[in-house]
């Protein structure tokens, strides 16, 4: 019978070499080594062991000689002789004499021979039948033994598997709990520090605000005082000018009266009261007109006072403006916490430089969610035409004040409003995770529509393949909505006819924030096996837990001529 592992394992393409013979030798040697007992050895996985065969301790082949002998010789009747003689004359008598003697002897011997033959026949028949029975019994035993052995082996494997699985589970739980505890301690200390910082900052802000208000109040009081003084001065001046004019008019009238008194003493005596009255009325009207025309000054002054007061009230209110201001501060703080949790950010390589290379020579690149305009500034200094959009008004104002072309609008509305194939690059950095899955899909679809052929779309998000990112860092920004798995992002891009040209991982976690391996100098001879296994496991875990923090994907919209 061919052994179970008789499948051919090698090829030699040389007619001078007897491959079959080599194969036979391999199997024969292997069988011998297995039979000798110390083969297969422990220590290797089961599937690497050659299959075991139960050794035959009893085979009919061992006694086959005996069996063929008794089966051939149970009949002991001697029929193979004839009585002859070579003597020419006496021969006839001799033969006859011997036949008589033989005849006499056979009369006694034959019954015994026949009995013995009969006995032999039965004995051989019984032996044959027993041998067959034993053979078939043996076969049964062999089969059961085989089944039993493989059962035991399976059981062993299962038990070992179970033990090692439980060990692994236990170890994993221990590590998980350790990690959770460490993370918790980290978090608590971070939160305490954050709280302290916040309290200090808010105290400072409050003091500053109070100072500002009291300063403004003083200013206002001063201004009001000044304006009061001004108004009093104006009123004084007006009064003075009225008095002066009345006085002057009186003098004029008096002189005229004196002048004309001589010539028209009688007529004058009659008209004088009317004349004086008219004159006085005219002067009073002129003064009133003057006062009315000077009221603009008061209007302006009072308007200025009310504007100043309103300014103060906006900054102290709890409306949207104040909230946005706080979000900006929140982002600054959370940035620090992020670094404490997972290590400082890595300057190089970064997505911005990669993107700059791909956008070189472009004229109309759109930065969606441009923030404080870091990338737009970079593009500008490299003479790449670009503009940005952001939904945070503070960021937009900040960018505009710094001379960047940035609009306050959301990505979907903006892309819908511009012409198809009008952009030659789109950059979306740390934005997708703030959107719902539906919006992500619509955004990618619109990007394809608005990009020219042979241009790039570059997207960067937190890398959720890292457990630290997906289970911790991601939630440091409450406005994060969606875990974006690289495979899903690839699907969405491909579904919308983009070709993926590159995938990148940025921001590796620094070594001091990962699990530590046992150093070479710490390994001792008696724990070498454990240490190497431990280090191997730690490396695997580090990869899984503390992978790169950022993921970026670069997609291209091909022209009609591309393959």
């Amino acid at each position, binding site marked *: 019978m061919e052994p179970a592992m008789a499948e051919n*394992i*090698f*090829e030699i*393409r040389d007619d001078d070499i007897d491959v079959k013979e*080599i194969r036979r030798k391999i199997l024969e*040697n292997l069988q011998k080594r297995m039979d000798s007992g110390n083969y297969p*050895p422990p220590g290797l996985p089961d599937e690497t062991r050659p299959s075991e065969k139960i050794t035959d301790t009893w085979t009919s082949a061992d006694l086959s000689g005996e069996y063929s002998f008794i089966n051939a010789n149970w009949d002991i009747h001697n029929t193979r002789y004839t009585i002859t003689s070579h003597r020419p004359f006496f021969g006839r008598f001799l033969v006859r004499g011997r036949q008589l003697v033989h005849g006499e002897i056979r009369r006694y011997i034959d019954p015994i021979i026949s009995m013995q033959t009969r006995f032999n026949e039965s004995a051989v028949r019984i032996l044959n039948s027993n041998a067959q029975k034993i053979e078939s019994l043996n076969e049964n035993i062999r089969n059961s033994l085989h089944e039993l052995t493989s059962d035991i082996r399976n059981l062993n494997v299962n038990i070992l598997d179970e033990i090692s699985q439980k060990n692994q589970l236990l170890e994993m739980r221990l590590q998980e709990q350790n990690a959770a505890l460490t993370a918790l301690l980290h978090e608590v200390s971070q939160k305490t520090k954050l709280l302290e910082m916040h309290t200090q900052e808010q105290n400072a802000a409050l003091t500053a605000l109070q100072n500002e208000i009291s300063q403004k109040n003083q200013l206002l009081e001063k201004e009001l005082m000044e304006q009061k003084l001004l108004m009093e001065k104006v009123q004084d001046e007006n009064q003075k000018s009225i008095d002066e004019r009345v006085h002057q008019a009186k003098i004029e009238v008096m002189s005229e009266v004196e002048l004309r008194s001589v010539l028209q003493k009688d007529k004058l005596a009659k008209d004088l009261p009317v004349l004086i009255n008219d004159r006085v009325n005219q002067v009073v009207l002129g003064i009133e007109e003057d006062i009315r025309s000077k009221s603009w000054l008061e209007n302006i002054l009072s308007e200025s006072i009310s504007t100043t007061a309103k300014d103060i009230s906006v900054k102290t209110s709890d409306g949207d403006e104040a909230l946005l201001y706080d979000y900006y501060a929140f982002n600054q703080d959370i940035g620090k916490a992020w670094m404490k949790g997972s290590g400082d950010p890595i300057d190089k390589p970064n997505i911005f430089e990669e993107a700059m290379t791909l956008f070189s020579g472009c004229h109309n690149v759109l930065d969606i969610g441009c923030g404080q305009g870091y990338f737009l500034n970079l593009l500008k200094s490299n003479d790449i035409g670009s503009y940005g959009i952001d939904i945070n008004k503070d960021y937009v104002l900040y960018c505009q004040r710094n001379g960047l072309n940035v609009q306050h609008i959301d990505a979907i509305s903006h892309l819908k409003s511009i012409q198809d194939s009008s952009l030659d690059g789109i950059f979306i950095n740390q934005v997708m995770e703030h959107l719902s899955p539906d919006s992500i899909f619509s955004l990618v679809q619109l990007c394809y529509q608005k990009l020219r052929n042979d241009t790039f779309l570059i997207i960067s998000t937190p890398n959720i393949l890292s457990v630290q990112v997906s289970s911790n860092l991601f939630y440091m920004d409450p406005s994060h909505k969606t875990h974006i798995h690289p495979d899903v992002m690839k699907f969405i891009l491909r579904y919308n006819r983009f070709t993926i040209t590159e*995938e990148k991982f940025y921001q590796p976690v620094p070594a001091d924030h990962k699990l530590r391996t046992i150093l070479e100098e710490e390994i001792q001879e008696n724990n070498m096996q454990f240490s*190497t296994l431990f280090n191997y496991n730690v490396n695997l875990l580090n990869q899984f837990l503390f992978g790169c923090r950022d993921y970026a994907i670069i997609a291209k919209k091909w022209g009609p001529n591309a393959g």
Partner: protein
Amino acid sequence: MQVDQILPSVSYGDAVSNDALNIRDVLRKNGYKSEIYAKHIHSDLARNVRPLESYKSDSRGILLYHFSLAGGEVTRFVMGKAERTALIYHNITPPEFFRDYDLTLYELCLQGLNELRDLGRCIRWGIGVSEYNRQMLEMNGFEMTAVLPILIDWDALDIARGMEIPGSGDGAVNILFVGRLAPNKKFEDLIQTFYYYHLIQPNSKLYLVGNEQIQGYVSYLKYLVTALNLENHVIFTGLVDKKQLAAYYRSADLFLCMSEHEGFCVPLLEAMYYGIPIIAYKSTGVPYTLGDSGILITKKDYSQIAELIHIVIEDSDLREKIVTKQRDRMNDFNYEKISSDLISLIQRVSAEVHP
């Protein structure tokens, strides 16, 4: 005519760099002007190779781009001159081999495969160093493909006669593999096969000659060796120089290769040169390099492979037949033959680029 070669990086002793230097010598000998340009240049080769920035475009010339890993900006540079470029493909390891051990290499290989597809879109001529590589080029869209094996300077291997390796002189049977410690080369299979052979022949050693780069993989292999109690019999030599390498080959009784991904596998040719019988797993570029010679493993059954090794070591007639067939195969990689193949290939490419 000018035929220049471009590589992302060159370093001393690296198979791709050696190939580029040999190709340059052949081109110059045949009257071509030829220079090598690279982005990263190892200091030993600073006089032989020019920085890529100094490349001056000559629209009448031809460019050969040696592609064995992601080139990034070098690839983009070459794509700008696609119409007069031919790609020489040394193969890129499938990224899956590195996923469990080194994410950086995983990304580099992934990016390399992406770049190969992009190159296939715009470059017409692709030259594989083996039939396997040629098939890869065809799959990636290259319209015209050819096979040009790596140029081996056989005379340079005739060194270090009589030099001894560490630990020699105990009469042990030495089994050898040469190659950097990368997961695709399946060192774990070498060690487990040797475990069985060591039971047959306790006076035996396994020499693993190659650079130890990927820490996770190296610690796994060392764990395996410790677990199998083979610390004194499996020797990791690390990176060695040319003379030491020759000495390791000369001390070896058999060359065993279990690799599951090879573009060409230069060490197979070196083993042929030093007259060592080869047993190698039949995968990717390996059967194309061995041709009819050596023994190809079709199923990784460690104990049976161990018996096969034992038979080859013990049966001197059989060993002689294998080694003879290997020497015949060496003729197919004759320096002059491949040189003339190279020149006629360049003529075909140039006739098409500048008709």
